[in-house]
């Protein structure tokens, strides 16, 4: 529940700007052509123009308060109490849960794993999605077929993905290792070695999300005016140069959106590493236990919701920091390409 709440909160933030920009147009047309009969009516219509835009956008904010804000605040409330999963609320203990989490070596271990898996998944994911979208944006036969097929991995449930990749990345009898041994190489211990396990998990994540991101990029690329490419071609720019100097700067807002969303998603990776082995603790040495898995372990295995809520809040803060850093970095990347 705490997991969801922070996700909803952040998705809410992502949707926020568009909601805010949607309101002024609603405020614009004051089609008040009726005769002004009384000051009361006048005041009413004044309120109407001033207040109704807020009324129109209010369903989102009401729902957000209910399913986003409330869980978020309630999680904060739980995190400053002793709170057993079965026993329920205990004494108020201030920030002790946070102190215990920060002192726990498995918290830092989980943070390291999360960042590592996030870097290994998000960066290749965005880069490959960009290239893929660039290719799909060219004149292809049966283009709809190609565009739809990149989305297929996204439709497959994560549990099914984990099952398939479990067979691919088996340590002893897995597909990859049998192929490696077939050509005389050493098998890779996918479930044992830290980096190998992160790579395996990242490839599951990438397999699922790359196509989805590619389609979002494609939608943005389709909106780039074709004349720009023509004039770039006349100026002697090749395909690659066109992509870097025309496409990238033109889709910058979409790029920002995808980067922020994949940051939020990447730091909350749960299903793939959770299903990578049967115990769900991230390996014998917790070498691939992510923060959300650590949160789950505290809440549902150790049955301490107070500590689990503290982790949820720390994760929330970490995501904000990462999102801000990413925002700054991707702004630079976008404008670099745009320099003429």
């Amino acid at each position: 529940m705490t997991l969801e709440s922070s996700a909803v909160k952040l998705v809410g933030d992502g949707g926020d700007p568009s909601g805010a920009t949607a309101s002024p147009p609603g405020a614009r047309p004051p089609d008040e052509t009726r005769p002004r009969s009384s000051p009361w009516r006048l005041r009413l219509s004044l309120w109407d123009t001033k207040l109704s835009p807020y009324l129109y956008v209010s369903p989102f904010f009401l729902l957000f308060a209910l399913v986003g804000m409330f869980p978020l605040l309630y999680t904060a409330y739980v995190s400053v109490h002793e709170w057993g999963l079965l026993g329920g609320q205990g004494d108020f203990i201030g920030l002790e849960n946070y102190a215990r989490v920060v002192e726990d070596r498995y918290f830092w271990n989980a943070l390291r794993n999360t960042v590592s898996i996030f870097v290994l998944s998000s960066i290749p994911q965005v880069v490959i999605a960009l290239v893929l979208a660039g290719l799909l944006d060219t004149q292809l036969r049966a283009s709809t077929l190609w565009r739809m097929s990149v989305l297929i991995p996204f439709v497959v449930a994560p549990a099914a993905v984990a099952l398939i990749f479990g067979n691919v990345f088996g340590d002893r009898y897995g597909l990859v290792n049998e192929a490696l041994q077939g050509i005389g190489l050493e098998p890779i211990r996918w479930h044992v070695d830290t980096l190998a396990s992160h790579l395996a998990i990242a490839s599951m994540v990438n397999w699922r999300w790359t196509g989805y991101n590619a389609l979002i990029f494609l939608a943005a690329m389709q909106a780039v005016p074709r004349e720009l490419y023509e004039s770039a071609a006349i100026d002697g720019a090749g395909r690659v140069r066109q992509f870097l100097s025309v496409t990238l700067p033109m889709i910058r807002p979409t790029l920002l959106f995808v980067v922020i969303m994949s940051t939020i998603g990447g730091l909350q990776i749960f299903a793939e590493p959770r299903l990578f082995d049967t115990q769900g603790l991230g390996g014998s040495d917790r070498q691939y236990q992510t923060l959300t898995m650590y949160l789950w372990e505290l809440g549902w295995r150790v049955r301490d919701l107070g500590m689990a809520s503290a982790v949820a809040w720390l994760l929330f803060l970490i995501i904000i920091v990462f999102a801000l850093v990413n925002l700054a970095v991707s702004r630079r990347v976008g404008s670099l390409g745009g320099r003429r």
Partner: protein
Amino acid sequence: MGALMALTLTMTAAACGGDADDAGADGKIKLTVATFNEFGYEDLIEEYNAMQDDVVVEQKKAGTANEHQDNLYTKLAAGSGLSDIEAIEVDWLAALMQESDAFVDLSDSEVEGRWLDWKAEAATTDDGALIGYGTDIGPEGICYRSDLFKKAGMPTDREEVAKMFTTWDAYFDAGRDFTKAVPDVAWYDASGATAQAMINQVEYSFEDADDNVIAADNPEVKDIFDTVTSLADEGLSTKLVQWSEDWTASFQNDGFATMACPGWMLGVIEGNADGVKGWDIANAFPGGGGNWGGSYLTVPKQGEHQEEAMALANWLTAPEQQVKAFEAKGTFPSQPAALEDPVLTGATNAFFNDAPTGQILAERAEAVPFIPHKGPRFADINTAFQQAIQRVDEGKESADEAWQSFLADVERLG
């Protein structure tokens, strides 16, 4: 985007709320029974529905015990949302006994003496409240591959094999002989599983009678750890983790020759080793007897139809019904009357070379001397213990390092 999100949210909220209807369409009381894996209740519930005029029973099956456990804990904590009858696994019993107020006291003179003593005792609180009706138990034998035994020049007949498996030392010695003769096949399926079987024979392993954590100082625990890790070094273990993909695949790849085998494991082996010939089961278990797993049916107090639920739980766990569940899915009954039922004692299993599995498991159940004490921290410490063994198997840590980090984990859980 905001509007879209709002729309989806309302739709989800509406979808979640659709389940509240309690009475069936024709005014009957609707009872739900939540189970996990296979309890063998499908036909029984149909039978019960046909018998009853005013009750309709519906079964909710979770795929795995973990999934069921998470759901159970979450809804216990929330105070609503549980089924009228909730199945629980013996390993969670201790933690749930601490919340015995949340469950209806099922004790009833009518059902007294229905179960094996230790089965009922484990679910009885200090005040004498019975929070669960026993369903099945997991008496253990040793399953083995007679074809691989033959290859190693060992006896293959299940009576003779049983004689080799009376003590752990004898079992391990046989393993040393075996791996010498057939070096590329391990003796047992997983270090963790063997350690688990040994821990289940220690009355107070990780916690003492007052639930103080003693795992760090208990010489028996250290002994098991040392034994299992050094045997893995000698090549007796596959060094795989039970239930992992590789473990499942090893059934098809002649990965190992023997394994500890509670009744419910027979179906697992038959599924994983589909097409493999040579499996058999010996009527013996090192160190006497052992029990692995088994479940109970509880009636949570948050349910609205506790009386009807209690009657249903009573009926389902009666010996006659549990024998039918055994026929359906091989879940081994915990009721002495069921253990003498000719249907059970006459049961054979074609996959295991027509072994009289009913009779063998009934004898294995009688050989269980006591049920080990498992306190509220048992499951967590056991997980840490299993992980420590796994780290040695994987070569991530030496046995000493793994033991030290196990001690640190116990300290952390303490």
